[in-house]
């Protein structure tokens, strides 16, 4: 009789313990995919622990030589022992949106980096958002105009447009208006089609402010006029690496934050390229935008990646991390590492949190060897609303220029 009661009690106890044991880690796993900030993820240490267990981070369209992404990937991989893969590094923002909508589970990315002109598709009217809301630790340091209030997307880094030129040009170009000079005939170009390429689109905007249109960023007619004048002499060429190498293209606009990658690669191919900011007006373009994919397969890494990319810390880069550092508990290691925002800063891209970081004196120096001239005025940052208006102008007029 007593034995039976004992057994019953023991079983009940075991059952309860079992249920609790089963419930607790299960709740934690479910929570991470719904965690909206680091607190809901159980703290930075827990987040790093879960990320290490997942072991993988799936990114999309972030080339290594773009805004220092290569260094950021390396640091993340080394510190947390996570393998970073990039789907279609040269892909477009539309590709990222379509991937989130249609790709099979095995090909879904964790985090996306899209251009400002497609961000509207992240929140389709009458449908579910494609992303999961998340707010990083320093959420308030992101300007309001550059983020979605509920955390569905947030600006990451922005670029300025610089003039890139082949030093074999007869004279050094100093501003956008120089593009239509007769001595540059036939070798002036643009990196792509402004109706489909973000960088080309912003080039037209940069040309616009350099041709008298600096007052109104939503009107790019002056930029279209400038390119029309260039085209009147000779058709525009495509500015890509092979055309630069063959001397087919010798002058155009490019993102300043790609200079660190482009100039050495050009040099290795026997090409002497230089970047210089326009001496009159420099365009601060709207930022590229990050978000966590709603179908993210590695939820913890998706969130840890955001925390890392938005970390404002000054600290060690991948090469400087020692074996001892790597053994430190998660948050201590995190505090030691240079944050993503400073990696962007080094490449010349403007981290979205630069205003706050400048106040806190956390910004490291940029590694670019060219600076905005004292005579130049930085125009912007252009807002998403500005560029949406400009887009309609470009789509309707570019082809018939």
């Amino acid at each position, binding site marked *: 009789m007593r034995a039976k009661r004992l057994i019953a009690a023991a079983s009940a106890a075991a059952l309860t313990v079992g249920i609790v044991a089963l419930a607790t880690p299960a709740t934690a796993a479910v929570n991470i995919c719904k965690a909206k900030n680091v607190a809901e993820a159980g703290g930075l240490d827990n987040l790093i622990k879960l990320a290490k267990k997942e072991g993988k981070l799936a990114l999309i369209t972030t080339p290594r030589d773009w805004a220092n992404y290569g260094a950021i990937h390396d640091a993340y991989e080394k510190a947390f022992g996570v393998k970073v893969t990039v789907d279609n590094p040269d892909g477009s923002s539309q590709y990222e949106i379509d991937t989130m909508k249609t790709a099979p589970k095995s090909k879904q990315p964790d985090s996306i980096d899209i251009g400002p002109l497609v961000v509207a598709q992240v929140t389709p009217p009458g449908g579910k958002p494609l992303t999961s809301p998340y707010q990083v630790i320093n959420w308030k340091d992101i300007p309001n105009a550059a983020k979605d209030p509920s955390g569905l997307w947030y600006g990451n880094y922005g670029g300025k447009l610089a003039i890139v030129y082949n030093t074999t040009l007869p004279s050094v170009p100093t501003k956008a208006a120089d593009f239509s000079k007769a001595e540059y005939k036939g070798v002036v*170009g643009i990196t792509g089609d402004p*109706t489909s390429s973000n960088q080309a689109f912003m080039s037209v905007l940069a040309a616009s402010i350099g041709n008298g249109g600096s007052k109104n960023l939503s009107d790019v007619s002056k930029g279209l006029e400038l390119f029309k004048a260039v085209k009147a002499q*000779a*058709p525009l060429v495509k500015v890509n690496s092979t055309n630069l190498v063959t001397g087919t293209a010798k002058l155009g606009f490019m993102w300043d934050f790609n200079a660190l990658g482009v100039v050495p690669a050009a040099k290795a191919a026997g090409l002497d390229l230089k970047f210089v900011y326009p001496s009159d007006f420099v365009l601060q373009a709207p930022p590229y935008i990050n978000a966590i994919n709603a179908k993210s397969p590695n939820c913890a890494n998706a969130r840890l990646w955001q925390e890392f990319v938005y970390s404002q810390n000054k600290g060690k880069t991948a090469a400087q991390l020692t074996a001892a550092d790597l053994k430190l508990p998660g948050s201590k290691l995190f505090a030691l590492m240079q944050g993503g925002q400073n990696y962007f800063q080094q490449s010349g891209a403007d981290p979205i949190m630069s205003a706050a970081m400048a106040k806190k004196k956390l910004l490291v120096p940029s590694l670019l060897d060219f600076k905005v001239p004292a005579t130049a005025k930085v125009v912007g940052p252009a807002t998403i609303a500005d560029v949406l208006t400009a887009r309609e102008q470009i*789509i*309707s007029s570019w082809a018939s220029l």
Partner: protein
Amino acid sequence: MTFKVIEEGAPKRGRAFLTSFIKNFLPATPLLLIVGFFFLFPIARLIYVSFLSNENTFTFSNFVTAAQEPYRTGFVNSIKIGLFSAAIAAFPGAIAAYFIETRGGSKLRRTIAVMSGVLANTGGIPLAFMFYAALGIQGQLTKVLKFFGWDLYAGTFSLGSFLGLLIVYLYFQLPLMVIVFSPAIVSLRREWSEAARNLGANQFNYWIRIGIPLLFPSFIASFLLLFASGFSAYATANALTVGNLPLTPLQIGGLLDGNVSASQLNLGKALGVVMILISACAVIPYLAIQRRSARWQK
């Protein structure tokens, strides 16, 4: 073997119907299944989505926009480039095919067939690069021509212009013509040329009365194929132009796989559907001509 006498054209009944079905249809099933699933199914879906608005309701608005600028110019330019690139490749290609097939040894013919197969598939950035390296503003051939007094770039010539595109398209259209037209030459039986000569016709008469009329349908058919190829070429035009020459495949590419996006999300798909319709106008005559000339190739 027993023979079943069936009246020609009588509707088949019962078992005869089943046998007829199996005879006429079944062996094609593997091909039809593969093409059906891997091709028709995606295209059907594309057509379906082209009628959807941004809010997923039924609409014609995508097609309305497709009929306006700059897409209208895109269609016109694409048709022009298809026609012109086919025209300038068809004649040289036909003549080259003629000489190769009739005068070349067997090894030469097969080598050319293989080379043409590879060349017909060149395109995109590698092809653009080859041409810029040769004919670009700092190209090797450009320099040679300049030495002999002809400055290609004195005016407004550029490989990214309509003319430039035609020259580059020739690189894959010519081999395509050779591949597609050669068999027609082969089918021009030597016996006919001998018979004509025996009947007193000279070379000129032979060509005017027999050769050209016989080859003409295949020539037109090959021309239409080249048109379809030039019309829908994407990667090469993408590598050479920056949107200055509106072409439908580029516009579709920009809408479906770009960074700027238009306000109508399904516009690209609508453009694709219109492209299919235009190409169908070239393909249907091709089939009709092929069927008629097939008789002579037996």
